[in-house]
């Protein structure tokens, strides 16, 4: 149980209440549509907060190149219709130059359709990357997170082969398009690599009991299971497998909840494959992040805000390269040709080109719980994958 934090309330509420924001010359107006409340808030509220924290610090330090960032935050509750309204409001009322989305995949379509028409770029900074950001990328859509169902699947299968090339692999997906697409792609990769598949199990969103799904995977001979969906679903799948005495290895996406949960589950057979660094490593980058969170006094788990924090870094870099023209086109021009140092929170830089708004090279790391040390460990360090 987590008691809600009032400090956060005041800061966010104040921004929301400010109403229409008109851009001054030395100001860049950025709209943030985030699932601050509602069912998905458990995943997205923290990164949104992290992003805001980063921008606040930027502004306190005098902005970038003399420009301050005015962040307009609206809650979309992870709901498509609310996101559509937010998009309209950003574009017609607040005249934002850039939109950031930290929300569910359900909110992508409305935001994209609103923003692309107005020529305003969108940065997806907390969620899975929409396929439209990958080569051949649609103009205006960028993604700074490491989540991509297809690329995560490639990395998962690759690591799985290193670990046990003969394993029969089962796939656990949730009945939302993006998760299904990822796992079916993963199955194709597995079959293409001459490995055996135990099939893709898709659980509808209203699933009460994951046991029957797990049973089917086990009976199909799954020795390893890949899962890629919201954390709550992939972890329930994993629970259901273990409850039936299944002893194979499971590979799941590295989501914001992963680090804390894995430290609680303490199961060395549960691997996360993802592109973010974990906080327990205590690297320079994570130390900065933890220090910032502590200093702000906001009650947040540092590991949950990594993506938002990175979103802040991206904005800093983009605005740093921006000249006097702070229009949406100018921002888009900068974004479509930039390389951003992720300062150790990722394996390498984020490089965007005209054709690729995801990144040219993505680095994956694998984590798991180690029984020997009684702590989290890096199962395999950064490995680079080219994005084609």
């Amino acid at each position, binding site marked *: 149980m987590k008691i809600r934090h009032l400090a956060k309330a005041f800061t966010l509420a104040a921004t929301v209440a400010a109403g229409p924001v008109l851009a001054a010359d030395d100001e860049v107006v950025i709209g943030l549509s985030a699932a601050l409340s509602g069912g998905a808030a458990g995943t997205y509220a923290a990164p949104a907060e992290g992003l805001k924290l980063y921008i606040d610090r930027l502004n306190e330090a005098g902005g970038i190149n003399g420009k301050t960032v005015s962040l307009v935050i609206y809650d979309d509750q992870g709901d498509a219709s609310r996101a559509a309204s937010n998009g309209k409001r950003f574009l017609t009322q607040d005249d934002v130059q850039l939109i950031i989305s930290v929300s569910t995949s*359900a909110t992508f379509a409305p935001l994209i359709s609103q923003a692309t028409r107005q020529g305003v770029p969108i940065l997806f900074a907390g969620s899975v990357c929409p396929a439209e950001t990958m080569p051949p990328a649609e103009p205006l859509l960028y993604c700074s997170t490491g989540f991509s169902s297809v690329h995560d699947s490639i990395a998962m299968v690759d690591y799985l082969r290193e670990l046990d090339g003969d394993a029969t692999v089962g796939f656990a997906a949730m009945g939302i398009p993006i998760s299904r697409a990822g796992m079916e792609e993963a199955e194709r990769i597995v079959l293409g690599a001459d490995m055996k598949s135990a099939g893709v199990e898709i659980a509808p969103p209203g699933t009460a009991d994951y046991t029957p799904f797990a049973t089917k995977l086990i009976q199909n001979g799954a020795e390893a299971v890949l899962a890629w969906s919201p954390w709550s679903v992939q972890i329930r799948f994993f629970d259901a497998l273990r409850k039936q005495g299944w002893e194979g290895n499971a590979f799941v996406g590295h989501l914001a909840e992963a680090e804390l949960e894995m430290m609680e589950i303490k199961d060395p057979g549960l691997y996360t494959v993802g592109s973010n660094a974990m906080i327990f490593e205590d690297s320079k980058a994570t130390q900065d992040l933890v220090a910032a969170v502590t200093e702000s006094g906001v009650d947040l788990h540092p590991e949950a805000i990594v993506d938002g924090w990175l979103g802040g870094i991206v904005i800093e870099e983009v605005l740093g390269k921006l000249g006097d023209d702070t229009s949406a086109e100018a921002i888009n021009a900068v974004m479509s040709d930039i390389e951003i140092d992720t300062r150790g929170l990722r394996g390498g830089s984020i490089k965007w080109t005209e054709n690729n708004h995801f990144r040219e090279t993505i680095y994956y790391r694998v984590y798991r719980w180690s029984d020997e040390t009684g702590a989290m460990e890096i199962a395999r360090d950064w490995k680079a994958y080219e994005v084609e």
Partner: protein
Amino acid sequence: MSNTETGIGKIAPVRAVAKGDGGNRTAWMGLIVLLALVPLVASPFHLDIASQIFIAAIGALALMVLTGIAGQISLGHGGLMAAGAFTTGILYKETGAGIWITLPASVVAGAVIGLIFGLPSLRLRGVYLAMSTLALHFVVIYLGGEYEFASGASTGIFLDPPVIFGYELYDGQAWYYALFLLVAGTYWGCSNLLNSKTGRAWEALHANETAAEALGVQVARYKLLAFVITSGIASFSGALFAYYQSFVSVEAFTLFMSIQYIAMIIIGGMGSLTGALLGAIFVTLVPYCIEWLMETVPYLGLDISTASSASHAAFGLLMILFLVFEPSGLIGIWKRTVARFSSQSKKEGVQ
């Protein structure tokens, strides 16, 4: 016996569709002129809310006719809207069809689905019927999801603004006027129907099916007719929703949406078309009002992360309050207020 237990009869002591309702012609004209002037002063955000209200109003009018007038409860209203939105989205995506094809197609699709899901109403009543309409929701969402997935539209189907006589309907003001006209048209059409043989037949079968049948009303036919017509309208409003929001995805049509529509007709006042409009306004505004409260009264101890749950809770509470204390809804409150004022002014006139 049956009229109180099968129907929603007792919730609704008012019938506001008859002539008396629109009696004050100047007031209506004044209201219309006022509404027509709104876009000149409103911010784009407010226009967006108004447009959402208009779309909701069309859906609420349909549900009011089905449930409030004809007494057939439906929990599948969100599913019907999804059906309309998907018909439009799929037609547009697959064939690039224009609004003159997609909208009628959506109405027809809705009407056909309405016919199919109206069939159980010939055997089932009340709660059982509600449950069979719930199935409608799951079926439509399942089919829509399968299409989205099969067509690779993992984030949803995108729609370009509709083109009407060479004019692209995109601007917030243009949408406001277009939707305003459509709401007025729907209201007018529904009100005409209710003041005709068809509407009276619906009222009769709502009150007592056996008695209605003995008066010559072909109950089965009129029940199905109610389902077909209102489903067509609901589907139409779903298609408008798709165009207005420029996208279609299953995630936009939740079960909660169906409940919101039920809430609109309860809160507005069962049996009254004007009530449906009031309910649509009220229910659409609740979450915004909650957020506004949170912003302006920070000492409530609520923060933005609770916005959605707080408006959920408030919404449930309001529904309960209306059901328990004000079963005649907003329209009932309105009528009492009007009655009090007019009786007061009469008294004053006498003095």
